[in-house]
Each structure stands twice: as C-alpha cells, then as structure tokens.
C-alpha cells in the first residue's frame, strides 16, 4: 500500500508497471483496477492553458494514507497505489493515479471507486485554472455518482 504526492509530472502507466513489479505478488492478483485522471484543456466552455494544484502539506499525505488503510480494511485487497500531482499542471498531464490489486474484480472495482470518490470529495487539494481571461479557482468537483 502506497500513496504519494508528486511535484513533477509522472507517466502513470510506467508508474503502474514499476509498482506492480515491486509488489512481488505475481500469480496472486487476478484483478487490477486502474483510474487515471488527466488535465483537460477545456472547462466550463473555456480554454484552460494550465493549472496550479495546491495542497495542505501534511494533511493531504495523511488523508491519502488513511484512505488506503480504509480500503484495505473494507475489501480483500493485495495492494493499492495512489499518486497525485501538485504544482503547475499542463493539459494532458496525469493528475491522479489510483490502482488496486485484488484476487477478484468485485473488490478491485469497488475499492478503486471508493478511493477515487473519497479523494475527490475530501482530500485537501485545490485547483486554480489559467484561462486566456485570467486565473480562477475551481469551486467544486463534479459529482461522481
């Protein structure tokens, strides 16, 4: 189980492979559920050229770690990985990677969905968008369900 804040761009699929190989669990997992959130170049019909992603150092890391523990306590998981960017983010950059490994798809799907929805609604991150008209804070995340 691992969670981490990244200040530099990361390649989610390379991270996924690297972590999976480090797990030493080959042959045990039958289901891997993966979510990658990437930056779009448009929001609310406006062009977005970049974003600044702010977090609460300390609380954000603690919250993501707790989420991983909660998922492991509730579902039958082999491992989980959460990576999240902060700092200046550009269109097509990965913002978040959530991956869950389990024996069967039910636990993998449900736990990954839980991690993403909790992260989106409670993990202390904030996005400030840069548009041709200037900067603006994103006020709310869209509902996941």
């Amino acid at each position, binding site marked *: 189980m691992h969670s981490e804040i990244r200040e530099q761009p990361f390649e989610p699929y390379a991270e996924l492979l690297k972590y999976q190989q480090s797990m030493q669990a080959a042959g045990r997992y039958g289901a891997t559920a993966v979510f990658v959130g990437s930056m779009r170049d448009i929001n609310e019909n406006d062009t977005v050229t970049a974003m600044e992603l*702010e977090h609460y150092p300390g609380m954000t890391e603690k919250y993501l770690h707790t989420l991983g523990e909660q998922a492991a306590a509730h579902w039958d998981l082999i491992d989980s990985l959460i990576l999240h960017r902060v700092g200046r983010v550009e269109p097509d950059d990965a913002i978040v990677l959530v991956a869950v490994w389990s024996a069967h798809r039910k636990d993998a799907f449900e736990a990954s969905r839980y991690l993403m929805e909790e992260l989106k609604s409670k993990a*202390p991150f904030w996005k400030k968008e840069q548009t041709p008209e200037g900067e603006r804070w994103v006020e709310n995340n869209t509902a996941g369900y």
Partner: protein
Amino acid sequence: MTIEVKFFASLREQLGRGEASLTAANPMSVAEVWSQATDNAEMPANVLMALNMEYVTAETTVNDGDEVAFFPPVTGG
C-alpha cells in the same frame, strides 16, 4: 496558549494571508478561532475545518499547541 491557524486556496486569497498565530487564555471552539483569526469575518457556509489535520466541526474544542485550518471545498483528482 498558542494556536496556529492556516488558510488555503481561495480563502487565503480572500483573507490576504495564509497563516495566523493566536494566543488565548482558555480553550476555545474552532468557530471562535475563526473569529479571532479573521477579525470577526463572516464564515463562508461551505468552509471546511481541520484540527491537527483531521476534519472537525465548528463546535470542536481547540487546545494549546493545536493547528487549525480553514479551506474551501476541495477540488483535487
């Protein structure tokens, strides 16, 4: 006693500062910390509050050495 206060994102910009340090004679609620740290500014209805990096409500008691944070709805992921 001393209480460290933090503000994040749009709330920090609206208040014009990211941190404040309070001294108080007695334990107080999170709501009272807000009032003292913001010169009695009105608390936004959607503000989120954390005490020592855990979510709490406005009624939660704050003690000496605690860190209190106020921030707008989160928008990560």
